């Protein structure tokens, strides 16, 4: 399947077919999640209505982390197989991941202030998430640091791969260190540990956000592929129709 989709033309044909239903489903999931999260779910017995921040903060945080795994894997594919589509995907993902990392940090601060009394603490979870944000920014900067964009591809891929070591640190920081940030509360060893009234909107927002990410990444890949083709045609025009 990977070989089949590794052809950019075939990939784009499939993407064109899927993007509209995917976008519609993402919008539906997010709308249902927003309705349940804001209107139809109860306030938390300890955190009051601030628990509603969870429905945007947790999906953004999961997406930042999983998105970085995808980014690192693209880096690996590009380094090992030198496939141009892996580079395109990496360039398409990095800005979207950076946006969600930023949203995670900001919504976290807006949750931290009323619940912990501080916008920010140098806690292991918060600090490792901030480092993940910097990795995203650095990958974007490195990928675009050269006159010919392709020269930045390999350094950006290597950096994306190196940043993967930070992902388990983000995930397990709440278990390895004594953090102010609460440990995972969705799934614990005893199974699902959250009431269905809160679980449903959270799962809807999680699914909707991840699908949204896929849709935006496909759009950006389409843009990047077309821009590469334009650049190639322009170059051919300059060198006098050699191709």
């Amino acid at each position, binding site marked *: 399947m990977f070989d089949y989709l590794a052809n950019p033309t075939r990939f784009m044909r499939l993407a064109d077919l899927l993007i509209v239903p995917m976008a519609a489903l993402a919008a539906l999931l997010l709308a249902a999640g*927003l309705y349940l999260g*804001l*209107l139809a779910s109860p*306030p938390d017995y300890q955190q*009051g*209505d*601030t628990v*509603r*921040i969870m429905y*945007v*903060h947790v999906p*953004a945080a999961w997406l930042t982390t999983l998105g970085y795994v995808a980014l690192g894997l693209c880096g690996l594919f590009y380094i090992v197989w030198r496939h141009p589509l892996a580079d395109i995907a990496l360039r398409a993902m990095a*800005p*979207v991941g950076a*946006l969600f990392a*930023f*949203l995670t940090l*900001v*919504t976290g601060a*807006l*949750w931290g*202030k*009323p619940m912990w009394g501080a916008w920010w603490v140098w806690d292991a979870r918060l600090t490792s998430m901030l480092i993940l944000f910097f990795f995203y920014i650095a990958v974007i900067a490195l990928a675009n640091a050269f006159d010919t964009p392709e020269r930045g591809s390999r350094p950006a891929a290597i950096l994306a791969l190196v940043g993967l070591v930070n992902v388990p640190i983000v995930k397990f920081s709440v278990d390895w260190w004594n953090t102010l940030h609460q440990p995972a509360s969705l799934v614990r060893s005893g199974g699902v540990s959250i009431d269905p009234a809160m679980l449903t909107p959270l799962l809807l927002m999680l699914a909707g956000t991840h699908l*949204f990410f896929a*849709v*935006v990444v496909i*759009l*950006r890949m*389409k*843009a990047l592929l*077309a*821009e590469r*083709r*334009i650049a190639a*045609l*322009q170059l051919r025009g300059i060198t006098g129709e050699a191709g």
Partner: protein
Amino acid sequence: MAEFLAMGGYGVFIWPCYALSLGGMVWIALSSWRRARRAAHRLQEMEESRAADRSR
């Protein structure tokens, strides 16, 4: 309605979370879509003019 907006006194923290997230998502979706559309149009123009040049 006012009670809903107040969010138990936490409205000033909750609403910016939702507004920023929604704003950020709309912004990146629209800008990505526009960029893809613009590039596709430009590419089509270039390919049409190349085809016209060749048939001349």
